[in-house]
């Protein structure tokens, strides 16, 4: 973990060079986990029903936490240089933090999902407006893998049953559409794509919540005076 963090440490730069920061982070991290991510991509179609392991692993959470802290440092610098703190800007700062967290989350997805690409594409929409789906802009050497054919093997195992008959199809369609509006970048996708993206997105969001929770705990442990002798255990 120490080496991971020290590789990513850079002098604080402005936010417009954050793309290069992201690229360098990806390069430094690709050395640490190339096989695991490729193994995950290969194991997606043959997955036996367990949830995506990559969003729940400790390593993934650490990677995300490191990225989050980097991004938050930049946010902090840009906000401190602007107008001073007052309550009207509280929401703006919260939004900036949220965007930084989403960006870090999207980068942690390593470009393999639609929603992560959509989040990152929205940030640089001004520069790449003419491209419909700018996959290869921020994240170089990304492999676009869409594996919605997970059930093509004809597995008989079914842990719980979902009734899906023809009568409820318009209802299901409507609900899938509204679900697609919630997940970034999936407004116009087909039904299985939306469902697949939603499963990944939910797990990523859960990890984001966990990471931010621990970060808040850590920081609030430091902001109270007199408790700086030892860091609180996470």
């Amino acid at each position, binding site marked *: 973990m120490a080496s991971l*963090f020290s590789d990513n440490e850079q002098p604080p730069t402005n936010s417009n060079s954050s793309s290069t920061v992201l690229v360098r982070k990806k390069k430094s991290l690709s050395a640490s986990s190339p096989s695991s991510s490729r193994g995950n991509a*290969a194991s997606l179609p043959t997955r036996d029903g367990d*949830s995506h392991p990559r969003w729940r692993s400790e390593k993934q959470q*650490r990677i995300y*936490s*490191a990225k989050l*802290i980097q991004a*938050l440092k930049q*946010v*902090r610098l840009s*906000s401190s240089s602007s107008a001073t*703190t007052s309550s009207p800007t*509280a*929401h703006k*700062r*919260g939004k*900036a*933090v949220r965007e930084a*967290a*989403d960006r870090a989350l999207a980068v942690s997805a390593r470009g393999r999902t639609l929603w992560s690409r959509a989040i990152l594409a929205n940030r640089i929409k001004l520069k790449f407006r003419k491209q419909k789906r700018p996959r290869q802009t921020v994240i170089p050497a990304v*492999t676009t*893998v*869409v*594996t*919605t*054919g*997970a*059930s*093509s093997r004809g597995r008989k195992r*079914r*842990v*719980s*049953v*979902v*009734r899906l008959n023809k009568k*409820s199809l318009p209802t*299901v*369609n409507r*609900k899938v559409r*509204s*679900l697609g509006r*919630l997940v970034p970048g999936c407004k116009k996708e*087909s039904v*299985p*794509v939306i*469902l*697949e993206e*939603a*499963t990944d997105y*939910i797990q990523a*969001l859960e990890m*984001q919540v966990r990471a*931010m929770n621990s970060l*808040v705990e*850590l*920081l609030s442990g*430091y*902001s109270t005076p007199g408790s700086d002798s030892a*860091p609180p255990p*996470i």
Partner: protein
Amino acid sequence: MSGRISRSRQVSGTSRISEEQINDLIIKLQQLLPELRDSRRSDKVSAARVLQETCNYIRNLHREVDDLSERLSELLANTDTAQAALIRSLLTL
């Protein structure tokens, strides 16, 4: 590598996509939801219910992230030495 595998599978509109495929995806989604996963009754849960719960759950998560972002932004704005202490503590992890 494997960049174009199943794009050819879902060629045209919804008629091409099999019911079983959608069913499987919805089952996977159900296993992620905390409410529907723990109380796994023997009777069937409708797909519409799963999707509705999914929407609610995602909205909840969004709201949580927003709340946490606000708290984080306040904490970051107030503390200055916390940055250095934070980095130090993470380096020792």
